[in-house]
């Protein structure tokens, strides 16, 4: 599946920041995939469920991407995504871009 076409949906300032912070290309790509999971899963305009399914799809793509490269990073991103979901459940407000960039700073 061509994932690159979805990268156009990512905010430019996020792309800029992750390319500055990431030490390797695969880390940059992982943070793009993580962004897209939360981007699609937090879309409220999703009448037919397509965005929800795309979010699910990007979960498997993130795992496929990182599993052979960096299991440690995959675990950290997974934990941060779960934290974002629980913030959504508890307080309904969170900034996923900020959460992911915070994690990227921690791992860089």
């Amino acid at each position, binding site marked *: 599946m061509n994932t690159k076409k979805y990268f156009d949906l990512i905010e430019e300032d996020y792309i800029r920041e992750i390319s500055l912070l990431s030490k390797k290309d695969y880390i940059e790509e992982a943070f793009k995939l993580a962004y897209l999971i939360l981007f699609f899963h937090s879309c409220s305009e999703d009448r037919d469920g397509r965005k929800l*399914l795309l979010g699910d*799809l990007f979960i498997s793509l993130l795992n496929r991407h990182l599993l052979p490269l960096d299991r440690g990073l995959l675990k950290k991103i997974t934990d941060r995504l779960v934290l974002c979901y629980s913030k959504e459940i508890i307080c309904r407000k969170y900034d996923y871009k900020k959460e992911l960039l915070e994690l990227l700073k921690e791992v860089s």
Partner: protein
Amino acid sequence: MRHTKEFIRIEKNIEVLIDSLSDEFTKKETKRLINSGGKRLRPLFLVLAAKAGTINDKCYEAAASLELLHTSSLIHDDIIDHGEMRRGLETTVNIHGREKAVSLGGTLSLFAIDSILSLENERVSTIMIDTLETLCLGELKQLNEKYNFEINYQDYITRISEKTASLFALSCSMGGILSGASEKVIHKLHHIGFNIGCSFQILDDILDINGSQKESGKVCGQDIRGGIITLPYLLLMDKDPSFKKRILSMTNRSQSHQFDELTDKVRKSSALEEAYDISNAFLDKACHLLSSLRCPEVEKDFTNIIKKLYKNK
């Protein structure tokens, strides 16, 4: 009840997994869904397949994770289908709203995947990720085909392979791999799961037409009203040109009662019997593979499950 020992261990492992979830809402809602009476077929398939090798703790841990993965996909399915009831209970989206249901499904999915990766079996991890991707792509394809009633038998089989049979095949393959079964046996287990999975989906599609709400936990005729055509409709379309013409004239703006009339027509035709025959043909294939496994215990256990699926006719 058969497989009592296996079910007890599966339940214990599911309980341990749920208890390790971090927030209270996720824990409570997952427990409610898990305790709502699912058949635990996917974890059971994994454990039964594992008898082809040496069954061990990892098999049960993986089995429990698969059930959570399945639960997460049901939560998201109910959002997409606007499902209000499942297994006779209100769905998560109906009680808590879309945002919480999306987050719960996402959490469970990530959590279950991580649990399977923690088993540190590269092959199991890879086939699980492959299957999840297939599932999602299959669902997206189904979405693109909504209200396109011009699909054929092969399209239908591809769809059910992707959305249902792939997970049953995964369960059986994982059982074989984690128990150290031979390559040949793992290959056969995969196809056994696949064929039973196809039969299972066909039976579910039949239930959507002729089942009671009590039996299926869902309202009848949901598939066609949602723009999804299933095997019994396709079989009648093949035989009855006027029925085909009516189906092809339906759109997303058609009224519920118009769809219900079509469902009623299928219910009264021989299409359901023919659909049972096709389901049985998949079960025959699974039986044939089982008999070539040379694992009497695996053959006996799966044959007992298959017999129950045959009985539906």
